[in-house]
């Protein structure tokens, strides 16, 4: 497994090359460097996976945990040190495949999407940096290494969201994304500090006796770490950065804000799962409730958005929440007895990465064709973009959970896991899944069906109402279509992967079997969602839609404004922190502390000016002062001595 080092080294190398010499390279060369290195990484990741899973289970019936590289990077205390290394276990190998696949697709896709864009080389440099950091995060051998790469993915995300750095919205969004996640990382860091101190190690396999003796601190530390994960994975109320992050180039949204970085929080919880389940099952259940609420919230908001990327962003939040719920409902690490959620969560992570990546790439192709994010500028595109249409439909069916697409299988496992935790949870999550089907097909119909915006504009142009001839929507170039077709194929087939054979909470093989009741009910709900969307949106705005709109205008408005969460955050940051704390402190510094120092200075000066009159050069006054002095001294001598 020595070749795994190249999985990290190659993206880093291509980042360094592109960052240092990129601006001098022609676009094609820069893109090729990035893509080739990523292609190699993908091959290596698949080779690693084949070798790892191919080698089979060890004598204990588990896949071994391999650590081909590990060295002490920074010794801190006698027991604590920061190590850097590569750890291979089922979930990290699975993540390697997911990340390298999606990243490679995005690299190829960007050739078409970013063609001719200024800063093309910089774009590929940042993509390489991101891929390096994300791969480093998943293979981390200890929590501190994870934190280090966690910060690095954060900054790559910052740089990529702000790629169009002259665009105001992009600047604000990148700043917001970084600061919100940093705020969450503060809790993560404090959690790590607690964990490190009481466990005596940063590794994922601490001495269990030490943890037992630490008592309540360990659940607290794990809870704090989860807050960090919630920041990256956009759980309510830390989700506010993700919709804004859509200001970045669309392939970036596909890679970072749909498939890989945003699931880091889920990965973190999965990584710490053995400790969670043993020491903090109550924290896991809190995670489940946070996830369930987030799933519903994001799904409702997604129904009211008009920007297609925003819809996808909220759908991402909702789907990640599904993964969180699945982890949270675990009550043991045995998949046969309450531990199914772990496997379901990882399965959904895998399938979601593929179909959500595909949805974003499709959205990118559409935006590329109509030059707008707004659904009003779309409609009837299925004639103009057949391939995009089909792949997008596949992804929609997958996310809606329709047999035999991949989302059906993973979602079914999640719902089964919820059912074994509490039937109410299953009902609730099935409802959210139905809502998911509804808003995804609403999006699908608004984009590809209904009245064509282009045709209506063209008609207006022919009548002479508008001056400019509208731009004909066109199918995306091959560089963009190929990745979409590949991802669509994976989305069709991934459901048949016997996932439980490879990844379960306790490492033992588990044969996935469909729970018929859950499968039927969830499929029914999904079909109801799709049917509703079909009735409401297939032919454009019709009566049903309009009455709905009028009846619940306020609610739709509120959902469109994401229930005013952003306004709340803006209030806290702008009004409370900036105006309420920072300004007064700066004022206090200038007008109290500094003024006191100035006062000392001016008091000295005033005093000096006062006593300066003694030195008047006037002999008579000197004599008088002298006589006074003599008299006082004489009196003192007489009376005191």
């Amino acid at each position: 497994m020595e070749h795994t080092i190249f999985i990290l080294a190659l993206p880093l190398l291509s980042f360094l090359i592109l960052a240092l010499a990129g601006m001098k390279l022609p676009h094609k060369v820069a893109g090729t460097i990035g893509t080739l290195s990523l292609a190699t990484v993908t091959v290596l990741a698949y080779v690693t996976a084949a070798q790892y899973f191919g080698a089979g289970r060890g004598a204990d019936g588990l896949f071994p945990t391999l650590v081909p590289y590990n060295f002490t990077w920074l010794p801190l205390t006698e027991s604590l040190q920061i190590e850097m290394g590569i750890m291979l276990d089922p979930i990290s190998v699975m993540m390697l495949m997911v990340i390298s696949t999606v990243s490679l697709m995005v690299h190829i896709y960007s050739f078409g999407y970013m063609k001719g864009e200024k800063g093309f080389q910089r774009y590929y440099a940042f993509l390489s940096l991101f891929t390096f950091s994300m791969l480093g995060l998943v293979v981390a051998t200890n929590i501190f290494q994870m934190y280090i790469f966690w910060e690095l993915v954060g900054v790559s995300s910052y740089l990529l969201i702000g790629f169009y750095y002259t665009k105001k919205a992009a600047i604000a969004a990148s700043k917001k994304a970084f600061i919100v996640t940093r705020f969450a990382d503060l809790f993560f860091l404090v959690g790590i500090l607690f964990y490190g101190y009481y466990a005596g190690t940063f590794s994922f396999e601490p001495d269990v006796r030490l943890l037992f003796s630490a008592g309540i601190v360990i659940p607290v530390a794990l809870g704090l770490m989860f807050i960090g994960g919630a920041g990256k994975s956009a759980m309510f109320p830390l989700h506010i950065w993700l919709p804004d992050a859509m200001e970045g180039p669309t392939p970036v949204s596909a890679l970072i804000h749909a498939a890989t970085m945003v699931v880091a929080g889920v990965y973190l919880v999965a990584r710490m799962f053995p400790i969670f389940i043993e020491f903090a099952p109550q924290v896991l259940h809190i995670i489940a409730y946070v996830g369930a609420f987030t799933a519903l919230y994001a799904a409702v908001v997604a129904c009211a958005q008009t920007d297609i990327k925003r819809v996808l962003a909220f759908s991402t939040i909702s789907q990640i929440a599904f993964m969180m719920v699945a982890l949270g409902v675990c009550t043991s690490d045995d998949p046969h007895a309450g531990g199914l959620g772990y496997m379901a969560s990882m399965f959904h992570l895998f399938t979601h990465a593929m179909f959500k990546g595909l949805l974003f790439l499709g959205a990118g192709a559409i935006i590329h064709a109509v030059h707008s994010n707004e659904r009003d500028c779309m409609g009837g595109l299925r004639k103009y973009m057949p391939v995009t249409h089909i792949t997008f439909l596949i992804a929609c069916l997958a996310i809606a959970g329709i047999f035999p697409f991949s989302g059906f299988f993973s979602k079914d496992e999640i719902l089964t896991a919820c059912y074994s935790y509490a039937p109410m949870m299953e009902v609730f999550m099935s409802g959210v899944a139905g809502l998911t089907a509804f808003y995804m097909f609403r999006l699908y119909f608004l984009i590809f069906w209904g009245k064509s915006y282009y045709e209506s504009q063209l008609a207006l142009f022919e009548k002479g109402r508008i001056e400019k001839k509208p731009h004909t929507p066109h199918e995306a170039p091959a560089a963009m279509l190929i990745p979409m077709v590949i991802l669509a194929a994976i989305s069709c087939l991934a459901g048949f992967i016997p996932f439980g054979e490879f990844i379960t909470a306790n490492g033992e093989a588990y044969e996935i079997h469909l729970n018929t009741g859950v499968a039927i009910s969830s499929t029914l709900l999904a079909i109801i969602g799709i049917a509703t969307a079909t009735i409401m949106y297939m032919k454009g705005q019709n009566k049903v839609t309009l009455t709905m709109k009028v009846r619940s205008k306020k609610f739709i408005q509120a959902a469109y404004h994401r229930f005013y969460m952003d306004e709340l955050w803006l209030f806290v940051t702008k009004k409370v922190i900036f105006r309420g704390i920072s300004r007064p402190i700066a004022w206090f510094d200038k007008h109290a502390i500094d003024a006191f120092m100035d006062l000392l200075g001016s008091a000295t000066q005033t005093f000096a000016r006062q006593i300066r009159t003694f030195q008047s050069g006037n002999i008579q006054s000197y004599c008088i002062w002298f006589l006074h002095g003599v008299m006082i001294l004489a009196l003192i001598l007489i009376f005191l001595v």
Partner: protein
Amino acid sequence: MNILNLFIVIPLIMLLALWASRNLRQTRSVMVVGSSLLLLLAIYLTTDFIAQRGAGADAEFLYAASWQWYAPMNICYSIGVDGISVAMILLSAIIVFTGTFASWRLQPMTKEFFLWYVLLSLGVFGFFISTDLFTMFMFYETALIPMYLLIGVWGSGRKEYSAMKLTLMLMGGSAFLLMGILGIYFGSGATTMNIMEIAALANIPVNVQYIFFPIIFLGFGVLGALFPFHTWSPDGHASAPTSVSMLHAGVLMKLGGYGCFRVAMYLLPQAANDLAWIFIILTTISVVYGALSAISQTDLKYINAYSSVSHCGLVLFALLMMTRTSCTGAILQMLSHGLMTALFFALIGMIYGRTHTRDIHELSGLMKIMPFLSVGYIIAGLANLGLPGFSGFVAEMTIFVGSFEQPDIFHRTVTIIACTSIVITAVYILRVVGKILYGECRNEHHLALSDATWDERFTVICLIICVAGLGIAPMWVSNLIDGGVGNIFTILHP
């Protein structure tokens, strides 16, 4: 001859040569040759020190030597270095070297500027190599006085006011110091001024320690921007010319932390243990307060000055947590802050030199106009907010992990409060980056400005390499300083 003497001799020769130089060309060559020599010497000293330690030289101070120069007070010119001072000397040499290039085009009176500049560096080097309290104090003063002239003559804005304020406040601090030094001298029986000997005697009565620990800590703390004695720093930095800001924030403020560690805590360990809590509170305030006030500043230099208050506060904070790891972290933070702030001030100076404004509301869209400087600024910013791969991260993490070794509720609480600074730092850094570098340039006069010249590029690249080097391979530095920290640590925790 003792190699450490060269750190005094080279600046002295440079002073003479500068005095004799007749034109700009000669002045520049003297500076380049001299500062490169100092840098090479510092690098040699570092490698040699590591080699000697590796070979088993376990004396507390290596290269120790002593010459008496005033017998009645037992004042000696005693020198010697441990790992901490070696690290500080290396830092100073790097900053002096890069500062030379940062003031390459300084006008007018270049020669006079460099004269004071070299005198300042002489004081700094002297301070770090001395092991005699009085000699140390003398060099300390030598470093402070040129600051007045450098700011007062070559500064900008309200330079006379700032220079005066800075000098008076620091002189106030040194008055405390002098008192403290005499207190230690007489407290330990008035037989020696040598730090090692005083530490070995360990006979200063506890009640004397209680009086003089706060005095000395405050004296050095003023230079380390301890709340509420930090207000000289924003004004001073804002008025100082670029290389003076670099040297000041990069090195001079480290004299404060170094002194607190070497004199206050090392020689008065009992009081340090008992009274640390007072100063922990003050430094915690420094850390958060400095960061919060940086958010609402509008002048680039003020922002970084307040950021320095926060970061230097963290240095003193970590020292006072008094675990071995946190003290190592404090030294790392000194190095890291020195390099990062020098980089920041260098970049701000370069931007100011072109745009003639430091107001963030008047600057915008610089990324398109001066890409090199802007990228440098972003890197400096990311380093400052503690991105892994840069020195700040290593230092902060060492400090926080070290501080967590103190398990009681008080230390835990203040540590967590101090941790919040990593978020606040991100806020003010990204605010500035977003405002001045991104977006479209609104000021048409700025459109025609040029990007960095070769000397500026050289300065920036050197410093970035140092910051990244310390961030990627921190182990050799932490090994270097660990011995020195260990010695002091054993005295603090007998």
